[in-house]
């Protein structure tokens, strides 16, 4: 994919096709950034317009993904902590309910959610997509953190309370710092859930203003003519860069977090 994105489109169709690019060709990327491209002929004009939107879409995806992660962090930490530690009626039931909502096939709730988002006049807006993505990301987030919190010995939290912490201080100064790998792993998963999501992103957005990377990629792919494979590959590369960068940066914490989450 990366190799193809650095080859001019017509060269891709030679027999045999080039295995490595013969020169560093940046035309496909320059096109995404606005430069006209001579090699591009054929294909439907709309596709080129879609490809031009790739950068905006990736930016949209990032905005939505980061917001979803922040929403998950705020709501999920409290949800997971209270289910894991605060004795209350119905905590195991609420945990079950949270998981259960995750088991529903998203296609089954597509129409109701569309109607709801429409009623709130949030169609075609990033906020609408953010809310829907958060609803999908929170269950897994809560589960990972729940397991992580459970794995912390109760006595460490007791010690913190005896040392003079209120519940909230104990959460902030002891529990959350210890849970850092779990928090990072859960956050990255929340981000990826949002970043990968296609069905709702494409259904809830009609214009480029709120279109995310996954939806734009599909639009590009669907309209792709004979001479735009290389361009499509360039779009792909741009789209996968943010998640790859994230995983590379937090590789260690993701592994630690997941190992703890699945070991229990």
């Amino acid at each position, binding site marked *: 994919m990366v190799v193809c994105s650095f080859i001019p489109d017509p060269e891709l169709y030679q027999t045999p096709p080039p295995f490595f690019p013969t020169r560093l060709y940046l035309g496909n990327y320059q096109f995404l950034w606005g430069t006209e491209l001579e090699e591009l002929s054929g294909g439907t004009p709309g596709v080129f317009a879609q490809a031009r939107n790739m950068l905006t879409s990736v930016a949209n995806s990032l905005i939505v993904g980061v917001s979803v992660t922040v929403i998950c962090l705020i709501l999920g930490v409290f949800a997971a902590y209270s289910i894991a530690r605060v004795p209350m009626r119905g905590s195991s039931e609420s945990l079950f309910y949270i998981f259960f909502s995750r088991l529903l096939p998203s296609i089954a709730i597509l129409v109701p959610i569309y109607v709801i988002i429409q009623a709130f006049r949030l169609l075609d807006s990033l906020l609408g997509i953010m809310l829907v993505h958060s609803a999908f990301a929170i269950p897994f987030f809560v589960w990972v953190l729940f397991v992580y919190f459970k794995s912390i*010995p109760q*006595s*460490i939290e*007791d*010690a*913190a*309370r*005896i*040392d*003079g*912490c*209120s519940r909230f*201080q104990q959460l902030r100064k*002891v529990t959350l*710092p*210890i849970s*850092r790998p779990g928090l990072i792993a859960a956050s990255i998963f929340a981000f990826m859930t949002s970043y990968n999501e296609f069905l709702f992103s494409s259904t809830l957005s009609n214009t480029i203003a709120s279109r995310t990377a996954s939806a734009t990629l599909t639009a590009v792919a669907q309209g792709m003519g004979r001479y735009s494979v290389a361009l499509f590959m360039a779009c792909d590369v741009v789209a996968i860069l943010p998640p790859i960068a994230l995983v590379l940066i937090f590789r260690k914490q993701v592994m630690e977090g997941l190992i703890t989450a699945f070991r229990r």
Partner: protein
Amino acid sequence: MKETARIVLENLTKNFGHVKAVDNVNLEIEDKEFVTLLGPSGCGKTTTLRMIAGLELPTSGRIYFDGKLVTDVPPHKRNVAMVFQDYALYPHMNAFENIAFSLRMRKVPNNEIREQVTNTARVLRIEHLLDRMPPELSGGEKQRVALGRALVRKPTASLLDEPLSSIDAKLRDEMRSELIKIHEKFPTTFVYVTHDQVEAMTLSNKIAVMQNGRIHQYDTPINLFYKPVNTFVASFIGSPAMNLIEGKLSSPQAGKVMFEGQDFAFPVPVEVDAEHLNAKAVLGVRPEGVVLHEKEVPGSFGAELYTAEIRGEFTVLKLKLGDTILTSRIESGRMFKKSMWVTFAKGYVFDANSQLKSTF
């Protein structure tokens, strides 16, 4: 705030669902005393300690510190310190920060924190470990850091929940004598929880023996040993455990009350109330009270050797008297034979409800 306190528990009860973990406990712990809650696992000793700490709220009953009602006061406002069985060091802080944490929470100035932590560390001999993270410390070192964390803040009371149970035997002996020293250097009220009677006997001023959420006896170690109120305390304190033989007391023969066990009858040299005659009873004899003779002597019973455990400083013999198995403790090096004669030198008589009636 005062540095030490008298702790009073009044009718303290804690239910977990239908389980009565602590059942109407009354306890008075004097200022600067070292008191141990002793009992088998599940007896409610840890729950009692956690209620003193404020980590559990009692179902009913009251807790007073120095006459002040603290039953509903949250732990961070009680100024008690606690050492946990698994140390519970904060894994994301080094030893220094672990010890300093409670001082930081109380916004003590930095230079004072440094001074107090260093002083505490010097007493506990962990000065050289202060910049290590918890995983880099050995069990005994973690224990010291946990103690340091408890002692640095000069608490009203220090609560210790089986602090020695997860370190190895040799270190445990060392830490035990160290704890005595620490209590001398930091004279605050210590409440100590353990299931190990040796720890309880050696460390405490007073011991509360607990079972099924109730306190059987609250007394000095010596009194617990020589005047156990019932068979539970009698069998829990002392090693090897006291022999308890079931039987009944019969009417006096030749002026002496007879204890009739399954396999022998023994004249009990004590006065017994008429109401206990012809009633079930338990005869208790400590292993060192089971005296061995090579030949038959008046009032002795023939016994067969069952097993012998040579423990070095003494030898523990199990003897069969019919179907009754008796434990005897003799000095090491003393010869023993396949069949011997035993007499009881010292013993206790418990009534049908297992309560102590008299000793001889």
